[in-house]
Every structure is written in C-alpha cells, then in structure tokens.
C-alpha cells in the first residue's frame, strides 16, 4: 500500500526503525538467516532464550546446527522451503540452564527484494511450552475420564490420575486417600510414586484436627497447605514417618461428593519446603474433581453390582418361571430355577410367540391379559390350565409391563393350591349341608304344622265328599268345589315338601342368577310356621325389581333362613306384641344389600364380630355354627356379612352380595 512518505531516504529510515522496534519488542525469538541458513541476526529475546550474553559466537552458524537428529533434519527442510519462497515450519525442545524443558514452534519465511527475489530468511521461534502442557493435560484428563466411563477399577483410575499430575510438575509426588464409610478412617486410594511403607503407615489412621495435611483437610473439609512438614504443628504426630521417607511439603485438598460429603483427599508432596504456585493450586483442584467423579462412579457401579447380585439371589430363590416377551407375545428371555424347569425347552420357545407354543385357549387368555396390563400399568393376574404329561395342572400368571413395550410374566404352578381350594370348598359345602339339616331339625315342629294344615284340609274335604255323595239329590257344584280343594291342598303340601327337599339337597349346585327378593319370599314361606308359632310379625321392604346376584340358591336361602331363625331366637324374651322382624333388600354400588332386623336383646358390646366365630352363641340351642357357616358362604360368593346393634334396640344383620355381571 502506497504510504504518503515525503522522501525515499527518510521513508526507508523510518521503515527500518519500525522493523527494528518490532523485532526487539516481540516476545518471540527472531533470527535473520542468509540464503545458506546461517545466522545473520538474533534479537535480545533470542539471546535470553539461548542463555548467551552476546551474539558473536552464534553469528554465521547454520540454524540446523543448533539441533540434533530429527529436529535438525526438520530445520534443514524448513530452511530449504523458505529459500524456494515457501513457508517452512518445525518444532523443537530446549532445556534451560535450570533444566526445565521448553517447547518452541519455529516458522521460517523468505525475505524478498523489490523484484521478489529471496534475499534473506526470517526465522521466528515462539515458546509454546504452556500451550503444549495444556494440551497434554487435556489429553491425559480425557484419558482418565475415559477410564472412568469404561468402568475401569478405581485404583487404576486413581493411579493414572496421580501420574497425570506428577507428569505435569517436575519432582512432585501425589497421593489420593479415601475416607471410609464410618467417616473417620483413612484408606489408601492411590500413591504409585510414594514409598510403599509410607503408604502402609497412613492406611487405617483416623482423620482429625491435627492429622497431617490430608487427615486435617478431610476433617476440616478445607484445603490444607503445609509448606514445611518439619515445622508445621499439624504434622506433630506424623513427623517421624514423613522424615523417614523424606517428604517436606504437603498440600492437600478434600474430595467432596455433590452433597458436600467428604470422600477423600488429593495431596501433592515435594521433598523440599515449598508454597504452591497458582498452576499447582489449579491442578490440585482439577485432580480432586476428577477423583470425585471416579469415586462416585465406582460407588454407583458397586451399588449396581450389589443390586444385580440381590436380584440374582431373589431369582434363584423364586419357585416361579419368569418370561420376558414382547407385547405381541414373542419370547425374549426366561428364568427358571432348577426345581421348576418349563415343559418346553427354551431353545424351542425363545424367539417363538405365545400362540406358537401354547394352546389357542391359553394363548388367548394370556394375550388378553397382556392387552389389559399394557393399558392399565397394573399387574394382571390370570389363571389357566395346561396339560402336563398325563395330568392337567393349574397355573397363575402375574403379568406386568416393563421396559416400556415388553411384558414380564411371572408364572407359578398353583395345582396344589387349587386342589386345596377344591377340598376346602367340598368341606365347606358338606358343613353347610349339615348345618342346614340341623337348622331344619330345629324347625321340625313348625314344619310338621305346615304339612298338617293342608293334610287336614285334604282329609276333611275327602270325607265331606263321601257324605255329599250320599245326599239325594247330590249337590254336584259343592262336590266339585270340594274336590278342587283336595287337589289344591295336596299341591300345597307338595310345595312344602319341595322347599324342604331343596334345602336338604346335598349340593354342588352351579352358580346361577338369584333374585334376592324372590329368595326372601321363599324363605319367609318356609319359616312361616316357625314365625307364626313364635308369634313373630314380619314386615318386608322389597323394591319392585332388584338385579340378580350370582350364586348357589340353596346356600343363600340357608344364610337368610339362619338370620331369620336367629332373629326369632333373639326375641324369645320380647313381649309377644313387640316381636317384629323386618326384612329389606336394596341395590347400590354394585351390591345387593339384604338386612334382617329384630327387636330382640341385641348383641353384647364388643361381640359384633365374635358372633361370626364358630361355636360362639348367645342362644339356648344350636352349636353356634350358623353364622360362621353363613359368613363362609357369603365370602365364597364374593360378598360380606356383618352385624350392627339398632339404636332403638335389637340387632340388624346385613349381607352384601355382588350383583351378577350381565356377561356372566
């Protein structure tokens, strides 16, 4: 760019002056070489770097001659490139008089005349020691973090971390100590460069307010700088050990968890008394930070391993089969302990679908359960039966969604439980039957009366008919009426016998929809004689219609009959005109409610639940099994039965039975 300069000579002088000042004021080492690469000029920074007083001994020396080996070749190549008009570059290391290594980046460029011919070469060396150290540090840091990420052992990671820091500073020794879970005991972490005996001497000591640099740093939770171990009171108790191994300065910083819990310490040692530089302080914090990540990660890994081990132990102890499938029923994985091997070999079913392996019925049940479990997030429990060899066995599958789109099925063989349930059910039925027989036995008098009424009518009508036959003329109208009454009363007796027979039946009756209103009327009919002979007045409050419940009609009648007879017993000592029995039914919240209220003596305090226990009775007669059996019947129907005392005297027994679902 043309500058507005007054005179060529003056301009030249000014330009040279400018150049000289640039060269002398730069922090870089500037050299001017002739075309053979020999030194023509070197600036003051260059002399300082080379640690020589003046340039005379260096002038006319070839640049490459300052170096050896590969670096010399690289320097020669760079000079050659510059001579051809290009830009040469090479890097080299130099040790200063103090022995510290320094790295330089050298760039060699051509100096041309007005015609563009190369006349001299310019070599500029820049001190890149700091940059290279930073790069090396970053690389090592990265390496350590990679070790942590790949789950390498904590001791390996900490060893590498210690080396990383030690490499960065000449003569520095580092150690990592860990604080045990008890919060006081010091444990060895990593100290690859410290003498083994020293490391052993520290392991197991306790932290405290005067426990060397590390023990104190962990105790106080702050960085502790001890410049000279020989004089610092923190080392009073440990000075001997330190002296024996020749350490003099020790700086330690605590390693904190994210919750500010002390995990350990990172320490730097020197064999002479020293105060840390900013660089060293920066690095000790960085090292403590990386150590924290390593320790935390190791703890997380260890927790995971423990949890994994626990899960494995649970799995080993479970008697169940566990299957992992996709939502579509493809078997992905399974678990079975030795005692419960699945019928089909895993090689066959893994990868196949439920529909391939199991019968269409069972597969259908499971797939529907999958759909429900997937939609609800709840555990679905289904039961099914399968042929196993020659026998049919029962299974229960608990199905839950896991990992988002997979299904976990825990399958248990419940054949034995099912068998026990069946036997229990049979016992319960047998007991219920015996109880019905006993109950009807108590009603014998009333039932005899119920039969004798129509039989009396039949006999009297039949004998009346014979007399009417003798009349002349015969009153045929009266005769027909009389015979109609014979038939009607015979049917009436038959109905009494039918009711008795159904109650005495030993039942494995199928569950069927039962109209509780109708059942209530039947029970009142059956107990009519008993109620009449005990002079008990009955009122019923039945809604016009009531949803059906699903159940064993006879057993439900038994429950109600038992409640009615109990109510009568409770009113034995009540004045005859006050003997009121109220029966009512209602439907709400999915249940049909049945209530039997009496005006009797009520139930003693605290006995409302006890009356349902076997052999507990407040009556003069009976074994005290009626209510226990009633409860077992109601419970088997999915309902509940309980007792309450009325505010105005007497007791009410309530029974809730689930309404039958229309679909069955």
């Amino acid at each position, binding site marked *: 760019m043309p500058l507005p300069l007054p005179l060529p000579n003056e301009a030249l002088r000014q330009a040279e002056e400018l150049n000289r000042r640039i060269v002398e004021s730069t922090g870089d080492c500037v050299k001017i070489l002739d075309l053979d690469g020999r030194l023509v000029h070197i600036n003051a920074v260059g002399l300082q770097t080379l640690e020589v007083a003046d340039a005379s001994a260096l002038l006319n020396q070839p640049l490459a001659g300052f170096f050896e080996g590969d670096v010399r070749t690289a320097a020669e190549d760079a000079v050659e490139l510059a001579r051809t008009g290009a830009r040469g570059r090479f890097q080299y290391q130099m040790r200063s008089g103090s022995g510290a290594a320094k790295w330089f980046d050298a760039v060699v460029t051509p100096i041309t005349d007005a015609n563009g011919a190369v006349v001299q070469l310019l070599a500029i060396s820049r001190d890149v020691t700091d940059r290279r150290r930073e790069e090396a540090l970053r690389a090592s840091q990265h390496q350590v973090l990679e070790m942590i990420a790949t789950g390498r052992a904590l001791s390996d990671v900490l060893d590498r971390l210690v080396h990383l820091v030690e490499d960065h500073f000449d003569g520095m020794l580092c150690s990592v100590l860990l604080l045990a879970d008890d919060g006081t005991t010091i444990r060895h972490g990593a100290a690859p460069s410290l003498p083994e005996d020293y490391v052993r001497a520290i392991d197991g000591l306790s932290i405290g307010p005067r426990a060397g640099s590390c023990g104190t740093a962990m105790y106080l939770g702050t960085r502790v700088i001890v410049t000279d171990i020989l004089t610092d009171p923190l080392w009073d108790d440990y000075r001997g050990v330190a002296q024996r191994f020749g350490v003099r300065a020790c700086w330690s910083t605590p390693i904190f968890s994210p919750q500010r819990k002390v995990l350990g310490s990172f320490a730097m040692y020197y064999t002479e008394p020293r105060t840390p530089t900013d660089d060293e302080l920066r690095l000790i914090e960085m090292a403590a930070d990386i150590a924290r990540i390593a320790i935390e990660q190791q703890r997380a890994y260890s927790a995971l391993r423990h949890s994994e081990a626990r899960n494995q132990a649970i799995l080993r102890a479970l008697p169940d089969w566990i299957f992992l499938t996709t939502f579509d029923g493809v078997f992905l994985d399974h678990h079975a302990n030795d005692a419960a091997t699945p019928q089909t070999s895993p090689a066959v079913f893994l990868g196949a679908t439920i529909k391939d392996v199991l019968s269409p019925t069972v597969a259908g049940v499971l797939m529907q359960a999958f759909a429900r479990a997937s939609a609800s997030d709840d555990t679905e429990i289904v039961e099914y039966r399968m042929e196993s060899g020659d026998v049919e066995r029962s299974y229960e599958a608990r199905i839950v969604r896991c990992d988002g789109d997979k299904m976990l099925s825990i399958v248990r063989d419940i054949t034995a439980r099912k068998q026990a349930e069946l036997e229990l059910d049979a016992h319960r039925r047998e007991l219920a039957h015996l109880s019905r027989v006993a109950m009807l036995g108590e009603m014998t*008098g*009333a039932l*005899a*009366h*119920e039969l*004798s*009424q*129509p*039989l*009396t*009518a*039949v*006999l*009297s*009508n039949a*004998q*009346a*008919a014979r*007399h*009417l036959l003798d*009349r002349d003329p015969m009153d045929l109208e*009266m005769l027909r009426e*009389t015979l109609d*009454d014979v038939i*009607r*009363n015979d049917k*009436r007796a038959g109905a009494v016998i039918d009711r008795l027979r159904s109650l005495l039946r030993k039942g494995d009756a199928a569950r069927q929809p039962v109209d509780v209103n109708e059942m209530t009327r039947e029970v009142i009919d059956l107990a009519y*004689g008993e109620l*009449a*002979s005990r002079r008990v007045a009955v009122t019923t409050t039945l809604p016009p219609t009531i949803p059906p419940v699903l159940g064993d009609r006879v057993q439900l009648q038994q429950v109600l009959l038992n409640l009615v007879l109990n109510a009568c017993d409770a009113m034995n000592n009540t004045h005859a005109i006050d003997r009121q029995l109220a029966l009512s039914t209602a439907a709400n919240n999915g249940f049909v409610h049945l209530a039997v209220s009496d005006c009797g003596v009520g139930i003693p305090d605290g006995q409302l639940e006890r009356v349902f226990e076997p052999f507990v009775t407040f009556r003069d007669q009976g074994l005290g099994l009626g209510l226990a059996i009633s409860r077992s019947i109601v419970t088997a129907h999915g309902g509940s039965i309980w007792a309450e005392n009325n505010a105005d005297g007497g007791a009410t027994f309530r029974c809730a039975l689930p309404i039958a679902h229309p679909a069955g």
Partner: protein
Amino acid sequence: MDRAHPMKLAVVDDDNDVRTAVARLLSAMGHHVRVFPSAEDFEAETVVVDCVILDVRLPGATGLELRERLRRGSARTPVVLITGNGDRLTLEAAAAVDTPLITKPFDAAKLTGAIAAAIAAAPRT
C-alpha cells in the same frame, strides 16, 4: 252322632283351607256350622253353639286363652282343641284344663268323637 241330631257348631281357625274343609265336612254330616278366622271374631258375635272347634295357634288370643274365657263365661260352651303341632307342651296344657285335643290331620270319626266327649264333659246347666 247322625243326621237325626244336628248340632250348632263353630270352627275357629286362621287357616282358610282348614277352616273351610272342616266346616264343609261337619255341614255334610248335617250340622249347622259357622266359621271364624280368629278368637276376636268369634267373641265379637254373640253366638250360642253346642261346641266350638278351636285351633290352638291363632293370631291374637290363642285357642287356649279363648277356651279359658269361654269356661269362665256364663255359656260354658264345650270346646275341642285342634293343633298341627302335637308337641308335649301343647298336649300337657290341654290335659291340664281337661279339654279334648286332637292333632291334625284328623279324620271325621276322631273329630266327632272329640265333640261328643267335650259335650259330655261340660257341666250341665
């Protein structure tokens, strides 16, 4: 007892079938029979009968209670008790008051025999 000696009788029983059938039998045998569903209904009408056939178990006053009142009354009407429940308690109660009692079902002969016995036992006025 035959058609030559018709009697005035009353049947008190809350069971319509029994009441109707017994009354029909006694009518067919030639007697004049009136029926009542309860003791109160019977007492509400001033009827003079030769014998009352009384059910032991009645709503309101029982047959035994009614019998007591009849005995205390000036008429001193003979009573036959009938019952569907032949338990010891009922039999003993009847025996204690020296009243014929027959258990259901009974035939015509047993009924007429009891009526005759009741009339025979009743104190003559």
